[in-house]
């Protein structure tokens, strides 16, 4: 029983890491540009499929390195062509546009790579269990957790230690002032969008290795990411990270006792947070309503 619980907690942690990685990208874009990127799941799937296509030429590690970058590049183009015209308009429009884009991306993935799930091969060195007792501790799972941790650390390094990151944070607080100080806000938003999409692409490549690859892979991960952002507190990236891990672990534990409530438990948590602490766990009071 303990082992079962431990297994599901660990599993929940991994799933939560996906949620967090995806939610961090969503949060970045939402905080700076006020855009709810519904197509985030589509980009995630695309990142995974690009890696799948590259793998015969570049191997697992090359694909892991290159695919998220290509996805991010696509994100830069999409932001420039489709989303930029909508800044300053009612958020309704960017939401609808990315909603439509999500449909298109899923359909494109289906048209190119087929509706059926395809296996995503991972190196044998990562698939062997590390312990006979804790059978679930495969190298790949540990590797995923480590990589997500590294990605998150990298993100916070960029945000806190680089000029671009400082501008992103400043723009989140007061875009107008940042613009007046001579920062090109258009480029800033473009790069920020690309950064968010990079995280989605990375999450996609990692998720493919664990869940297999199908066109709807992004759709199943995007809703929990919204929940993660709300639970953690809108406007707070550490909150988003915490929210993602929390709901992942919570649904992992629920799987043991009441499997059919695996998803519902996240929404119960969200309801409780909104009731008891409406700004979210780490959200700041009154910054974003």
């Amino acid at each position, binding site marked *: 029983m303990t082992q079962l619980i431990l297994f599901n907690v660990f599993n929940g942690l991994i799933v939560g890491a996906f949620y967090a990685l995806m939610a961090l990208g969503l949060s970045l874009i*939402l905080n700076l540009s*006020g855009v*709810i990127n*519904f197509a985030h799941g589509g980009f995630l799937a695309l990142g995974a499929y690009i890696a799948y296509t590259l793998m015969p030429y570049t191997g697992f590690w090359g694909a892991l390195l290159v695919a998220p970058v290509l996805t991010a590049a696509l994100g830069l183009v999409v932001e420039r062509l*489709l989303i930029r*015209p*909508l800044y300053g*308009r*009612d*958020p*309704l*429009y*960017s*939401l*609808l*546009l990315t*909603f*439509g*884009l*999500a*449909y*298109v991306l*899923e*359909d*494109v993935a*289906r*048209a190119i790579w087929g509706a059926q799930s395809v296996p995503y091969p991972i190196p044998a060195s990562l698939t062997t269990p590390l312990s006979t007792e804790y059978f679930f501790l495969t190298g790949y799972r540990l590797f995923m957790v480590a990589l997500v941790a590294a990605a998150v650390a990298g993100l916070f390094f960029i945000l806190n230690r680089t000029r671009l990151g400082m501008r992103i944070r400043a723009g989140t607080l007061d875009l107008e002032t940042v613009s007046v100080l001579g920062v090109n806000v258009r480029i800033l938003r473009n790069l920020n969008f690309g950064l968010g999409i990079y995280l989605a692409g990375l999450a996609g490549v990692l998720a493919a290795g664990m869940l297999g690859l199908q066109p709807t892979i992004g759709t199943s991960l995007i*809703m929990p990411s*919204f*929940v993660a*952002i*709300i639970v953690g507190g*809108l406007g707070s990236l550490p909150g988003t990270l915490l929210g993602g891990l929390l709901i992942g672990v919570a649904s992992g534990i629920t799987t043991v006792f009441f499997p*059919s*409530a*695996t*998803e*519902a438990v996240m*929404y119960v948590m*969200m*309801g409780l947070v*909104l*009731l008891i602490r*409406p700004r979210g766990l780490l959200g700041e009071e009154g910054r*974003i*309503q």
Partner: protein
Amino acid sequence: MTALRGRTSTIAVWIVLLSMPLWMGALGGYTELASRVVVLGLAAMALNFLLGFTGVLSFGHAAYFGLGAYGVGMTIKYLQPSTPLGILVGVVTGTLAAAVIGALIAKRRGVYFAMVTIAFGQVFYFIAFRWNSVTGGDDGLNNWRRQAIDFGIAKLDITNDVTFYYFALIVFALSAAAMGLLIKSPFGRTLIAIRENERRARFLGIPVEQHIWLSFVISCFFVSLAGTLFALLSNFTDPRALRWDQSGNFVIMAVLGGMRSFWGPLIGAAIFVVLQDYVSSHTENWMSFIGLFFMAVVLFFPRGILGIVKRRLAS
């Protein structure tokens, strides 16, 4: 002049709606398609009560639509084969859920409100999807049929497609009239004031949160009513009726037709339903079509059809 124009357009809408089953067939459609226009038109107008006339974006209305649908289906299947009772149960369920969730989120605004409604919308999807033994899970709730309505002195046999169309149209007419009266009432004017300038409304002493909550609940009441009709129409419902993409469809209908006008969402619904029917029977890649259609509406027709028409007439 504008009053006269308003009346003319209202009469035109009703002439079209009343005669739809007569010419739908000739244009390659069928009665069920006409019913779908009316039912989804009601849902889009109900959403627009909140979106267009209160200025609050909900992206989770499918949840209440679906609750209505499951309410009627489960009542007829498990409780009692009575259409009016089913509609009652569906509408009460949907409205109650909206009242509870609305109370949790009425203080949120803008993008945040949209996001919370999206997330909450999924709760009911997962319940319907997971609770196999009762809801039928992914396969949907089937093996039940809409029943003729017994008025004591007479029986209305809505199992007939054309009769059902006119039954749905009567419900639609009553709902539209109620929403129209609400919008014209002092309450509705207050909602519009909140939409135009929330801060000023607050300074005038208007309890903004209460108004938004009430508007949300009213909107969800009519959406769940539409949901009951939708399930009755196809004698079936499945989790897709309450999934997020359905919510998005309602919003695009409202925007496409023109969310600042009363009849806009109905026109948007008509176009959407006919287009979806046509595209999905002609290509496998209908998702791309619908997605590109969404993007085109946002980029090229953000005011919607009636918004453009109004502008033309004004200049």
